[in-house]
């Protein structure tokens, strides 16, 4: 189904009017298929470890909590290597391939906890490795003025896959009499299709080799001396500090709305749905009115979420409002940030630059989620969410000053 939709524009090869580049659609298809595969496994992994292998709570935490830190470093190295050898498709392909092989590794690991942890690390490392080269390819395949919408389309396809994955997993479990290995085999086959689509339909952008000195450690470090890049990194990292994480938001929401625990997983589904629907229109809006405005608007939506969670407003209307706003936050920030960063970065160092900004955000989020947990412990739920709202208002103000200063230059482009 997806292949047919990619083939037509790929055959056309022309980029006219408002068309989304064939390469972006191909990358979107790869992400869609890969997310079906990986979300299938994520959805049943706890089930497999606990019911299938009888692992106790502490081991589950151990396997589940393997580090974001290691993958953050790998993301940076991957981004730099992709630029250095000028093979973004190859590095992205390695990342996708690594995750596909990890699905088979889950079967091979058996009940060995270290082996299971290693396989899960490999899967996440693959994800870390592929994100920046993939986003760099999107920016290199799209005229700068249409980047917002291109990322919107890609992220919408990506979340459609994430949406379908758990449903496929449940269907496989039902059809196979609760056989976990069947889920892993199906997931592995689906991941292989994703790699196949990447190999056959995604085109690498191999610009003529720049002087070697231009892609070296010095040049990479030089990115930080570029005013625009530094401001964006600062703004994105500051705003990363304002995010407390999905888990906390949903937990607070379920308490506020007095939600029965059975509905808990549906909160994430609601957000994904809003993200899925809003990614393209908000991306297009960012192209029209300026990406910094939409990006900051996304964080304003997040601030509103915190403020609403800090009030006594409850019930279904509050729940729906918060989920839509949270979806707006994702749709207005995730892809838009990449669209904002792309044109600022020199083409030969684009992957490194994107990886740097993604890593800055991820590490800031790690810090803020830990701080939020501590705040919750020191005060209480209300105190913690109010502190988060204050922090979000502060970082939003500073980032607005930093990012909007660049806005006229970008709009003039």
């Amino acid at each position, binding site marked *: 189904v997806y292949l047919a939709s990619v083939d037509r524009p*790929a055959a056309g090869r022309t980029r006219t009017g408002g068309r989304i580049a064939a390469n972006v659609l191909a990358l979107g298809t790869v992400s869609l298929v890969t997310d079906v595969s990986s979300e299938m496994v994520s959805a049943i992994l*706890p089930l497999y470890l606990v019911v299938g292998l009888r692992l106790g709570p502490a081991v589950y935490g151990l396997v589940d*909590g393997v580090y974001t830190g290691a993958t953050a470093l790998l993301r940076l190295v991957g981004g730099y290597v992709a630029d250095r050898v000028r093979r973004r498709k190859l590095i992205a392909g390695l990342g996708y391939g690594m995750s596909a092989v990890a699905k088979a590794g889950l079967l091979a690991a058996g009940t060995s906890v270290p082996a299971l942890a290693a396989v899960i690390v490999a899967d996440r490392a693959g994800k870390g490795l592929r994100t920046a080269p993939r986003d760099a390819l999107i920016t290199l395949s799209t005229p700068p003025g249409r980047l917002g919408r291109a990322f919107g389309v890609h992220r919408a396809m990506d979340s459609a896959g994430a949406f379908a994955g758990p449903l496929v997993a449940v269907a496989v479990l039902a059809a196979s009499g*609760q056989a976990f290995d069947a889920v892993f085999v199906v997931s592995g086959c689906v991941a292989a*299709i994703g790699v196949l689509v990447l190999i056959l339909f995604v085109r690498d952008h191999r610009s003529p080799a720049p002087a070697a000195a231009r892609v070296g450690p010095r040049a990479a470090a030089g990115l930080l001396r570029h005013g625009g890049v530094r401001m964006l990194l600062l703004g994105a990292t500051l705003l990363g500090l304002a995010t407390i994480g999905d*888990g906390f938001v949903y937990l607070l929401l379920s308490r506020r709305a007095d939600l029965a625990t059975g509905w808990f997983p549906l909160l994430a589904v609601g957000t994904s749905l809003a993200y899925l629907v809003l990614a393209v229109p908000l991306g297009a809006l960012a192209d029209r009115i300026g990406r910094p405005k939409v990006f900051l608007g996304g964080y304003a939506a997040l601030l509103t979420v915190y403020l609403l969670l800090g009030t006594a407003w409850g019930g279904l209307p509050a729940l729906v409002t918060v989920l839509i706003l949270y979806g707006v936050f994702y749709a207005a920030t995730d892809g838009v940030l990449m669209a904002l960063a792309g044109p600022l970065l020199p083409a030969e160092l684009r992957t490194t630059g994107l990886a740097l900004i993604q890593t800055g955000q991820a590490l800031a989020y790690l810090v803020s989620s830990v701080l939020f*947990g501590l705040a919750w412990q020191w005060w209480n739920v209300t105190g913690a969410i109010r502190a988060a709202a204050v922090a979000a208002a502060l970082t939003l103000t500073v980032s607005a000053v930093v990012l909007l200063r660049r806005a006229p230059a970008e709009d003039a482009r």
Partner: protein
Amino acid sequence: MTPRHRALLAGAVSALLIAVAVGYVVVAGHRGPGPAAAGPVVDAGPGDRILFRSTAPGSYGRVGVVDRSSARTVSGVDCDRVYGAGGTVICLRPDGPLATYQLAVLDARLAVRDTYPLVGVPNRARVSPSGHVLAWTVFVTGDSYNGGRFSTRVGMLDTVTGQTVDTLEDFTVTRDGRRYRAADLNFWGVTFADDDHFYATMSTAGRRYLVAGDVAARTVRTLADNVECPSLSPDHRRIAFKAAIGGDPARGWRLSVLDLATMTRIPLAETRSVDDQAAWSGDGTVLYALRRGTRAADVWSVPADGTGTPAILIPDAESPAALRG
């Protein structure tokens, strides 16, 4: 390669991969023990017997009992986790073909008295000695607050009064004598002293505690550090538990016994890592399951005083519960 060739190649290889996936699902679907037959009547009432879950190929997942002479009777009832006491059996099992679970309350003949839907993936189950109060632990997915930490919930049900505890996280917690609040509280592995008093594991801030709880007062307080999955002896004087080696679960667990009067710990003779909530067979012997591969397990027994050697008590079985008279 022309775009047409590329599309053909992609179509052909994808079709092959999908065929492999579908074929595997179909084969896996025909591997189970077959439809539940009306098995022989099993007596799970009080007596000198041990209740278990079979992992033998022909009766995988079925509940059975062995008596003193090791005679094994396996019923037609499927459970993922089972425990029994006082004529009541708790059975955690899949609810329909989808990945949801239910708690089934069974009588001494394993007939279903009642079922309740469970939210999350079931992990531990216990019944109070009277057979009146049930407790269970589930993993709740999508509820990980912080960088992928796991989250567990303990629920309780009094089958006589109908009163329920949704989650122990709502109880008032006293840690080391002081009131304690935290977002990262997790509870698992309840063991009952009576219908109102219990012990369990509480984890917070990376540490795992033994807690004593009171259902009526809705309180828990910490008693000791590094005690997981407690199991109270029939004489209420000792607790069998798994101790993380060096306090680090990554290094595995040593099955141990804690004396509640002196708070001294004795490591038992089992040196392999035991990741299970143990059960007592009389006051002198501890029972536990050890995995053998991804599906099979055996129930082992070892003296509770640190002497002797472990021995297989019930082959191809797990989830042991001694049904005392």
